[in-house]
């Protein structure tokens, strides 16, 4: 699998601080992305120095399909370039696009072509466009579902047809207007696509497939081997902080509160065997399990909490404690703190 990162692109558009650039890139490399996409003009605006050799292999510069833009990319040191076009209905490749692709080839750049609104076109029309692009020297066709028109099975079907009938490489970038990006990307992967556009936490204007979700889904749901994951939550959150995009504390795979169990039935289950209510252990992604005492707690929760402090709560007191915990939680609209719990316990056993 090859992951084409879109996170930096989103960050640079936000815009992020120039000082954070290297921190983001270093952390993206830890997530084993195979390329990092950036807009060439934005690279220029950020006053980033020309790409060194390593960067030339890692970064792909996005440009509009003109010769002028190819030349700019080349002068900045880009070795991999993406010509990005949005076609109006009925349009196809223009002679400018073809000239741009050819110019890039002549300068020994790896040229890719991204159709921003690919999902508005039929498979046949895509094949036609791709043939023209391939003949003009592009190596990868990047199918961008800019309008979020695909759902998981149509993504599998469409991309499956393309991957099996087209020359060169195909890449798929899913978007998340309906919360389907990760699912669409998985559908494409299962249909044979090996190059997928992703972003950490699926950030972006119309969202992306979330890299951490796809990696873990590959491991646990598709039974495929992936790299180490114990740092994934930390790395993702470092990147998100650097690009100043906040996420929910219950964001799948990396949210801090994912393994905070409160429901009595869930706590009871997790104490017996965490697999009952956890798809994978928190340590696998670098998170920790928490036991929350609140409105939904049961007697097992209370006992477990006190066991952490080497205290056994007398049977008669547990229900009294539970009743007071539930009442307080509703009144203050939040879980019970350790101090509050101790106070309730002390009062209950004292009676």
């Amino acid at each position, binding site marked *: 699998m090859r992951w084409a990162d879109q996170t930096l692109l989103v960050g640079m558009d936000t815009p992020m601080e120039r000082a954070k650039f290297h921190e983001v890139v270093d952390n993206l490399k830890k997530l084993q992305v195979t390329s990092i996409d950036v807009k060439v003009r934005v690279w220029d605006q950020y006053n980033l120095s020309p790409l060194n050799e390593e960067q030339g292999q890692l970064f792909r510069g996005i440009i509009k399909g003109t010769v002028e833009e190819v030349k700019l990319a080349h002068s900045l040191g880009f070795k991999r370039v993406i010509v990005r076009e949005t076609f109006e209905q009925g349009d196809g490749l223009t002679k400018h696009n073809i000239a741009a692709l050819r110019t890039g080839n002549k300068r020994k750049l790896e040229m890719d072509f991204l159709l*921003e609104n690919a999902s508005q076109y039929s498979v046949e029309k895509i094949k036609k466009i791709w043939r023209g692009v391939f003949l003009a020297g592009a190596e990868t066709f990047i199918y961008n579902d800019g309008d*979020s028109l695909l759902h998981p099975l149509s993504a599998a079907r469409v991309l499956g047809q393309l991957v099996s009938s087209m020359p060169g490489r195909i890449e798929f970038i899913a978007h998340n207007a309906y919360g389907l990006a990760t699912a669409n990307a*998985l559908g494409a992967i299962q249909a044979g696509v090996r190059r997928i556009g992703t972003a950490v936490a699926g950030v972006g204007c*119309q969202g992306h497939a979330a890299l951490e979700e796809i990696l*873990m889904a590959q491991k646990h749901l598709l039974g495929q081997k992936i790299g180490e994951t114990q740092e994934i939550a930390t790395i993702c959150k470092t990147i998100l902080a650097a690009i100043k995009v906040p996420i929910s504390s219950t964001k799948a795979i990396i949210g801090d509160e*994912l393994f905070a169990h409160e429901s009595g039935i869930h706590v009871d289950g997790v104490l017996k065997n965490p697999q009952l209510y956890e798809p994978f252990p928190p340590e696998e992604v670098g998170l920790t399990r928490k036991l929350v005492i609140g409105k939904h707690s049961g007697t097992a929760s209370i006992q477990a909490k006190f066991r952490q402090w080497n205290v056994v709560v007398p049977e008669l007191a547990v229900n009294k404690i539970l009743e007071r915990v*539930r009442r307080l939680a509703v009144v203050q609209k939040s879980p019970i703190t350790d101090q509050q719990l101790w106070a309730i316990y002390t009062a209950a056993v004292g009676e």
Partner: protein
Amino acid sequence: MFMKDRRKVKIVDTTLRDGEQSPGIVFSASDKVMIASALDKAGVEWIEAGVPIMGKEEEEALKHILAAPLKAKIIAWNRAVTADVLASVRCGFSYVHISVPISDLHIKEKIKKTRKWVLEELEQAILLAKSFGCTVSVGAEDAGRADREFFLQVAEVAAKRGAIHIRFADTVGCLTPVSTAELFSFLLPRCSLPIEVHMHNDFGLASANTVVALAAGANMASTTIAGIGERAGNAGLGEVVMALYDLYGIDSGVDVGSLESLSKLVMELSGLPKVPQIRFPMLYKNPRNACI
């Protein structure tokens, strides 16, 4: 396609039950009534309101909801335990959901019993609820990791005792869209009851698995507003409703115009920090041309 020709499905919203189980969220009695009323006004026909056995505060909140002039059917969640069912009946519920674990993992490790025992307890609980005149739906917990034949068996037993539909709960969110499509094309023609799909978001697939299962022919789906719920949450009401309309031409009966205010209401009442990435259709926030 005209509206009247669209296929229809039903949403069973569980913001007030599964949603509230989300870490740190507590709804007061008046919060619950407000949310239930807003859901009702938006056209949601089934509202899973809570768990009566959870205690006095919960019972009080539920009684308030039951007293409100809502069109929606208000459901109490129960285990297949006599005390649970009696608490629901005492509370005044006409619609009762009875959930049993159906994966061998849950049956062995959590309740330390057998499949046979589960079926017997389920039957007894249904009979008890029906003896009080309740309408019963049944829930198959951890169905995502269970033997599919046993799921069908549970449905058959439930149907025989008069349950009206069965919830397929993917408790730890481990289905993929492709496996969901395959699984439901297998289950639907063989199931003795209509299926309500209940997906979790551990791998970011709850809304996707939900719409795929509905497209495959399931009639009903659980959602929560903003996808709140255990761990990474549930299928998001907004995402599911919009995807159904726009991508599948399926009518959920929910007013699209209410989705944003429902989300805002729950975010306010839950006290969760307002975070842009909370699960809500992005097309509401970012017009397409702003992104190109």
